[in-house]
């Protein structure tokens, strides 16, 4: 599994967990969509902060506080570069992707009024449904679902009849965490522009597959999670268009996000600080910066070829086993390496449990996408999700386990 510019062995050696037997078995980690593994470079960046520069940021003048602030702000710049944006001040550190979406729903959401409409799709992760549902309940707005095609894509053809003059926000997954389908963003942005709505993309499943060119996408908000993009837990990032952020009220209140505080009146700091209440997740942010640098150092055209080659191998292998059914796009076009499937007569949890006995880690169930399961009338799926460090042996172990699950249960 070596190509000219891509050496999977060299990548694997950077991830300490991959060389350890788990329960005595070689680990075949195909649960990257839930949480990716983290390279030594990220661990080192966080440990270096903890052991040489640990201090609170922004408010201190001593040497450690200066060093911590530099590291924290340069992590912000790294995330900005990863997203292709020029102004790091448009990057807000949050506790995760979920927290980032909640921030927009609470803050930008204060503009919404009764009767306004919020468009999500039927394939969204709960993190991109529940905050909007809660907002709709708070202000009396309406949550509208953009349909999903039979092969698990957001049906952008339905935009004209879904988006109305009352639409204020369109919030969609850039890449589906169940089917791997990539959103066709341009028609979404066009539809939003035509009615003056803003577009938020949930990039949780897109970010782990390389740098993003946000200016080219033309969206208004972009959210992603650190732990799915080879960074630590407890960190995510929200990018927002400057002009929007400037006008938005804060979400959480606390230290650092204020101008002046008295019990009678409080004024707010400018973005990004306005949205980072309290001590931020400094170590995790530094780790996310290191993860972005790690990703930016890869040759993503080679990585993409590698990841999609494994995807093809898995899809072909599954197609060759009677009783399997692929959920999601059939080919490699417009999709990322997230592969959902079902086995006839075998519950997804049982599949995952059998795979575990082969050292294969996958996810099974509704993947926090119950509306999609309802739409496709499935109790759940088994999902394999691929990262740069996966190799053919991971795919083959999965195929072997799938065969055994069918033999045992079906």
């Amino acid at each position, binding site marked *: 599994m070596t190509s000219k510019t891509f050496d999977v062995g060299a990548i694997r050696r950077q991830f300490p967990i991959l060389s350890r037997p788990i*329960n005595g078995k070689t680990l075949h980690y195909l649960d990257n969509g839930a949480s990716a593994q983290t390279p030594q470079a990220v661990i080192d960046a966080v440990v270096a902060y903890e052991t040489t520069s640990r201090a609170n940021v922004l408010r201190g003048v001593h040497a450690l506080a200066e060093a911590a602030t530099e590291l924290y702000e340069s992590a912000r710049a790294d995330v900005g570069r990863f997203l292709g944006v020029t102004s790091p001040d448009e990057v807000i550190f949050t506790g995760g992707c979920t927290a980032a979406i909640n921030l927009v729903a609470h803050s930008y959401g204060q503009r919404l009024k009764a009767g306004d409409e919020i468009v999500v799709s039927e394939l969204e992760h709960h993190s991109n449904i529940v905050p909007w549902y809660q907002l709709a309940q708070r202000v009396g707005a309406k949550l509208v679902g953009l349909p999903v095609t039979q092969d698990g894509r957001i049906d952008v053809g339905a935009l004209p009849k879904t988006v109305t003059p009352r639409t204020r926000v369109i919030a969609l997954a850039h890449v589906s965490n169940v089917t791997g389908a990539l959103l066709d963003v341009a028609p979404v942005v066009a539809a939003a522009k035509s009615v003056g709505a803003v577009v938020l993309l949930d990039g949780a499943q897109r970010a782990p597959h390389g740098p993003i060119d946000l200016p080219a996408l033309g969206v208004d908000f972009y959210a992603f999670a650190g732990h799915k993009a080879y960074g630590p837990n407890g960190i995510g990032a929200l990018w927002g268009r400057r002009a929007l952020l400037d006008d938005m009220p804060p979400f959480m209140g606390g230290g650092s996000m204020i101008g002046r505080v008295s019990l009678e009146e409080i004024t707010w700091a400018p973005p990004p600080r306005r949205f980072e209440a309290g001590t931020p997740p400094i170590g995790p942010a530094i780790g996310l910066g290191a993860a972005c640098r790690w990703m930016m150092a890869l040759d993503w055209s080679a990585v993409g070829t590698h990841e999609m080659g494994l995807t093809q191998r898995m899809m072909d292998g599954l197609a060759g086993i009677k009783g399997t059914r692929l959920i999601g796009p059939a080919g490699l076009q417009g999709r990322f390496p997230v592969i959902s499937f079902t086995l006839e007569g075998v*519950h997804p*949890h049982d599949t995952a449990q059998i795979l575990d*006995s082969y050292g294969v880690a996958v996810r099974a*169930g*509704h993947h926090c996408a119950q509306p999609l*399961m309802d739409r496709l009338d499935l*109790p759940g799926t088994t999902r394999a999700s691929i990262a740069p460090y996966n190799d053919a042996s991971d795919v083959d172990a999965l195929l072997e386990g799938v065969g055994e699950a069918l033999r*045992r*249960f079906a």
Partner: protein
Amino acid sequence: MSQALYQDRIVALAKSKTGAGTLAAPSAKAVRDNPLCGDRVTMEIRLDEHGRIAELAHKVRGCALCEASASALTARAVGHTTDEVAGLRREIDSVLSGESQGTGDFAAFAPVAQHRSRRDCVTLPFEALRAALGG
């Protein structure tokens, strides 16, 4: 580990589908979901004049552990009172926590004690039955 988890007894219990189906005239019915995995158990019961479970039927949308549990529970619950069913719940809890080996078919679930995340798969039918009994 999973090979041990899915002993032949579990697979056989799941495939037996003891009690699977619906009742013509249930006296009570309850549905319980496991939100983490999306599993769902529907439990219907008919009580006799002494408050004993005369008939029981379940519909399981769930994994083999959940199906096996519903089968095992059916076999042990029919003919018993609410109090006696509570005793069955205590027995399965002690099996799942590794405190006891369990009697009869319940013994098949002993390996689940090693898989904390799967315990709820086994208890879901018990939850649904308790709810149907008005607990």
